[in-house]
Every structure is written in C-alpha cells, then in structure tokens.
C-alpha cells in the first residue's frame, strides 16, 4: 500500500484498479475485485451529481453548525464513483443537482474533537452548486 492510499491524502483522488473499478478513498486492495489499485483519477476538476444530502444541526466539537453534507457521484469513463463532502450552501441543493468541488483549507478544527490532529489531513473539497 503506497503512502497516498492513506488518510493523509489531501485531495479528491479516486483510485483505480487494473480492472477499471474506482473507489474514493483508495484502499489496500480494490473493494470490488481485490486487485491492486494502480492509478489515481483527480475528481476535483469534474462536475458531480448529488445522490442525497442533509443539513446537520447537532455537530461535534470543531465542526461548523449547521453542517451541510452531500454524497456526490462522479462519472469517469462510464464508471461511477462517489464522495461525501460538505456543501458550501444548501440553497438550490436537491437530489440530482450538479455540483463542483471547491478547495477548503480547513474543513473542521483539528484537535477540537477526539481524533489525533497529526493522524490525518483536515483540508479537502466542499461541493458548490454548479
């Protein structure tokens, strides 16, 4: 397992195995077929579609309140891959809405919650109505 398969992964890289299956995040072996994942596909410049979304109003320490969240599906060469992420806004969001990833330097305050701050990255991508 290469280092970029782990929790320090900064971006929105889907991982592809030799049989063409995609996953986000990456895993030691492809969850679909068990083959090694051999390449990455950057989803950050692509437009995705909202599978479902919610607004959480009871958020843990260090998390914005309310916290708008969505599961978003991207299509890459006919293969679907999904990612969960914060929404910049809930305005105009519905199932099927088109969204674009936008970079955010700190998605929640490191160290405010139980997770060891050094154990993972805290930057990443939010989704914004396209």
């Amino acid at each position, binding site marked *: 397992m290469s280092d970029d398969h782990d929790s320090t992964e900064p971006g929105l890289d889907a991982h592809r195995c030799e049989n063409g299956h995609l996953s*986000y995040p990456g895993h030691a072996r492809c969850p679909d077929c068990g083959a090694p994942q051999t390449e990455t596909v950057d989803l950050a410049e692509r437009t995705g579609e909202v599978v479902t*979304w919610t607004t*959480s109003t*009871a958020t*843990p320490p260090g998390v914005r309140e309310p916290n708008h969240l969505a599961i978003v599906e991207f299509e890459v060469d006919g293969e679907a891959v*999904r*990612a*969960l992420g914060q929404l910049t806004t809930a305005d105009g969001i519905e199932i099927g809405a088109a969204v674009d990833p936008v970079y955010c330097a700190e998605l929640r305050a490191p160290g405010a919650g*139980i*997770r060891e701050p050094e154990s993972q990255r805290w930057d990443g991508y939010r989704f914004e109505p396209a």
Partner: protein
Amino acid sequence: MDRVAIIGASMTAFGDRDAWLLALLAEAGDAALTDAGVDGDDVDHLYVSNMASGEFEGQTGVPNALAHDLAAMPAYTARIDQTSSSGGAGIYAAWQSVASGASDLTLLVGGEKMTHRTTGEATDVIASLTHPVEYKHGVTLPSFAGLTARKYLAQYDAPRESLGKVAVKNHRNGLDNPHAQFRKEVDLETVLDSPMVADPLRLYDFCPITDGSAALVLCPESVAAEYTDDYVVISGVAGATDTHVVHERDDPTTMRGVVESAEQAYEMAGRGPDDIDVAELHDMFTILEFLQSEDLGFFEKGAGWKAVRDGVTDRDGDLPINTSGGLKSKGHPLGASGVAQAYELYQQLLGTAGDRQVDAEVGLACNVGGFGNCVTTTILEQP
C-alpha cells in the same frame, strides 16, 4: 451439534445513571448470575461488550476488573468491541465459546457509560469510527441517517410521516418497559414538530444518549435443564460487514451486513423470515427500522414503511417489532444494546414480558454497528 442455551439474563435500568461503567456491569452481571442460579466461580469465560470505555471514562481493562468484582476468577476474559454492535458481537463470541467446547459456562455483560459527556462529545466519540475522509467533514452517525432517510423517502415514494410512526410505535411500547429511559408516549405531531437534527430527520427520530448494562449466561443446551426449567436456545447467530466508507455502497438504502448476517443466521437455524414471531431491531434512528425490516426479508424492499403505517409491526400486529421500546425509547448504551435486545427476546419467549407480552416461539435480534458497517443477527427460540 449441541446447541447453546441462555439460562439467565438481566438488564439494569437504562438512562442517566449515577453509576460508572464498572458498577453498571457488575449490577447486570450479578443479576444474570442470580437469574441463572450460578456463582461467579462457575464461569469459564467472561466477555464484556463495550465500545469506548477508555474514550468515555478513561477506564480500560474492564473485563478483568469485572471478573474480580463478580468473584469469577480465574475465568478467561476479553472485551468485545464492534462499536454499536458490540453487544451482538458479544453474543456471537459467547456462543462460539460454548459451541466450541472451550467454555461450559459463559457470562456476557454489555455496557456503556455515556451521559456524563455533552451530546457533542458523545457524538464525536461515536463518529470517531468513521474514515478520515469522512471524519474531516464533520460527518456524524445522525448525519448518515439524514442522508439515507432523504434517499429512502425519494426512492420509495414514502411520506415523511412514515418515519415518525416508528417513533410513535416504539415510544408506545417503551411505556410498558420498566427499564426504559423514556416511558412517555409521543404523538406524530410532536415527532414532526421536534427540532431538526439532520434534515429530514428530527429529534424524535433519534435514540437518546444512555448509561446502562445487560447480561446473559450461556451453557450447552444438553445441560441447561440441570440449571433451570426456564431457558431459551440460540438457534442461529451470524455476523457480517459492509463497507467502512458509507458512500461507497451502490445502494445507500440497503445494508449488506444485515442481508448477509441474516441469511447465515436463517440457514443455521433452519428458519426463514416468515418463521419469526417477534423482532428487536436496531432503531438508533427511525430510518434504520425500515432498512432492517426489509433487509431481513420481513418485507419487500421499499415496503417497510407501509408495514409500520398499517400496524403490522405494532405489538398486536402480525410481526411485533421492538416490543421493548427499541433503542428509541429504551435508550442506547452502545455495548449494552445488542445484549438488551436478547434480554427482551428471552423474556418474550419465556412469557415473562408482562404488559409487553406477545405470542412468540421464535425471535430475532439485529444489532447494527457504525452505519451498517458491521452487523450481527441472532435467532432465539423456545427449546
């Protein structure tokens, strides 16, 4: 193969308890040993189902401490952590210990102490089970429920009110459970007007934060009658996993861990969904009762909400679900919940459930960890 019997069971009052974890575990463990008529030093194996005693309370090494408190030494001890399904996983471990012949008498005690933490802190301890790419977005288990509920309602054209009816039903059942955290009826209007927590789910769609413990005593069925006339048997038990990362599931409204563990448990018991007379499901969120009732094969996919609407799952319906009040009304002390599900079935099958009693010979419990990440399904029967 000799089946495994449950010859004693107990649960403490669930709720906001002054006692800390060790005292809660000792209370339930002591009561279960008394119920079975055995002593601590009769116990060969002692398992403690618990998710996060270190994180919640700063107390680790709990199984050994409990063995000492219950005079169960030199029993072999181990802690079983499978997050919210630690209790069900404990049943599986306890079953294995007896079925394998490694233990002639096993005590299983599940428990959690949570209410001394704020809701945000407790939610964060539970959310720490998520993948780093989920955790950094501040996702919580309730927000997974909101995401899934919106998808379910849209996919199966179910009205928002249908979820509220799960809460109304389970609170009605919990009214008759002396151990339940909330013994209060709620009407649909109250549920639908309660504060939004994870849109479209509101406060009354969620279980509370709870302290409590529950326990079981297990032995081979062939010797159960030497201890007591009142016992039940574990005819089927199995566990399974689904993806850790929740968004990687093809269909967010299906819990593969429920499907897989149920298929294996049914096969082991020689039973099917139609044979089940009463079920305890993991209604940590109202939406989960729909998903499990479908993925266990009780109802067609997308039809679970109609069964609740039509009263099929009421206490006097064809398939009573969560006669205990469920996690929703009884409370959800993480490691205790799966054990307490079995305690309710034990009472139902022995005919000691009082005002909650239904006519049942075969019961099923489904205990869900994470957001369906790991699941155990257990089938209990009259001997």
